């Protein structure tokens, strides 16, 4: 009796092998999930965190909103940001006279230094994309770009000045993205 039970169990065990074959056979005939880059692109890029970029102001979209406070550089865990402030402009002779007068009377003078940074050095090789800088910016001047296709030949390609990038961003906007429109979504 035991032998027959063993034999039946063996048969049912072997049937599990056939079931496995059925599963792989089914997937053999189903469409593929691969997105063949670069002829097609994935479609979930709008939430992707690419490298940092500066946000332009309302009046001048190519001038960053950054006020050079340095909170981001302080907050960054990886020390990848360096904010270089602009120097105060050399005052004209009239302004110098006005400054001297104000100093004599004890009036407060307005600081004419432009707020936006001279340079905003960003080392993408160190950045861990945590978002702390973005969240702690009082001016809302930082955001993550959606640049998935960033590629370079050397480390220097990934250490750049975000102010320059913002200024050149209109030229970049017309550059071609990968050729075909986004094809298969990952929720097919």
């Amino acid at each position, binding site marked *: 009796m035991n032998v027959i039970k063993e034999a039946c169990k063996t048969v049912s065990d072997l049937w599990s092998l056939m079931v496995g074959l059925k599963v792989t*056979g089914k997937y053999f005939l189903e469409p593929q999930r691969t997105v063949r880059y670069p002829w097609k692109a994935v479609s979930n890029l709008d939430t992707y965190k690419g490298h940092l970029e500066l946000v332009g102001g309302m009046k001048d979209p190519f001038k960053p909103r950054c006020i050079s406070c340095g909170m981001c550089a302080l907050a960054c865990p990886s020390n990848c940001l360096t904010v270089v402030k602009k120097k105060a402009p050399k005052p004209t002779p009239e302004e110098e006279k006005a400054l001297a007068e104000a100093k004599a009377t004890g009036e407060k003078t307005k600081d004419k230094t432009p707020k936006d940074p001279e340079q905003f050095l960003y080392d993408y090789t160190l950045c861990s994309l945590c978002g702390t800088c973005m969240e702690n910016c009082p001016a809302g001047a930082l955001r993550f770009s959606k640049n998935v296709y960033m590629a370079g030949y050397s480390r220097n390609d990934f250490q750049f000045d975000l102010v320059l990038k913002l200024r050149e961003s209109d030229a970049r906007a017309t550059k071609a993205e990968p050729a075909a429109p986004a094809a298969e979504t990952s929720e097919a």
Partner: protein
Amino acid sequence: MPAELIRILIGLVAVALSVGLIGLVMVWVERKVAGHVQRRPGPYEVGPYGLLQPLADALKLVGKQLFMPDNADPILFWLAPVLSFLPVLLLFLPLPLGDGLYTLDINLGLLLILAFSGLAVLSLLLGGWASNNKYGLLGAARAVAQSVAYEIPLLLSVLAVAFVSGSLDLATVVKEQGTWPWNWNIMTQPLAFLIYIVSALGETNRAPFDLPEAESELTAGFHTEYSGMGFGLFFLAEYANMVVVCSVATVLFLGGWHGPVLPGPVWFVLKVSLLMLLLVFFRWTYPRVRFDQLLNINWKWLMPLAVANLMLTAFFVKLAQFAVVK
């Protein structure tokens, strides 16, 4: 006889060419099937549908530097891949592709095939031993134990078919079978067919019995130290062995070149391809069997079943002979 000699020479050349072609085609088929089972495309860049991928692989393998580990035995090290590949050419000779389409007219064709497939064991052992590598040695030891063990049920299941057909000559075995599937030997010997397939998987080190090549445990086993053409020859020999084993299965069980409408060789190739596809599917579906379980399957299940099958077959064949005489 010169005619015989010329026939054998032509056959050998044809076999050598076709083995090369089979290697290329099988590599492509395996990778494509693997890809599609895993819902990805497999090779698709090199050539249309990746058809030239195996050629690119072959060129890469041929172009690699042939080097040998430090304390390895040079003669044995380079003998191993050659020994695994050359006897395979011999195994194709007695196989009948069509009516009268076989190279070697020998009345012990089956025995020839079984005998020479035993040489593959030697090449595995030499490969592992001569590598001077612990992983290689472990892989070789496993491979030898496995190959030697699985030859016995293979032989016994094949013998059962020989009993039914009354001859060891492959051409006769095919002739005895009819055109339609219900006349094939698989109807009279289904158990032998199953035992044969399992033993064939064990003999050719194909999954789920591919422990000698267990990558995740022993980093490629007996062919760890081989790169370039050495590895290429082992690889090619494995695929060629697979084809031989499938061809023998078609000849013995599936009616060889018999079939309704199409010419003989076409049916033969079709049947062999179907069996090969099945073997490729096995690789990508099942996990690996552990080594002691592998030997257990052989000694506790396959061999007793094969012996029982053989005895039953002998009994019924004798009974039929008596009935005819009466």
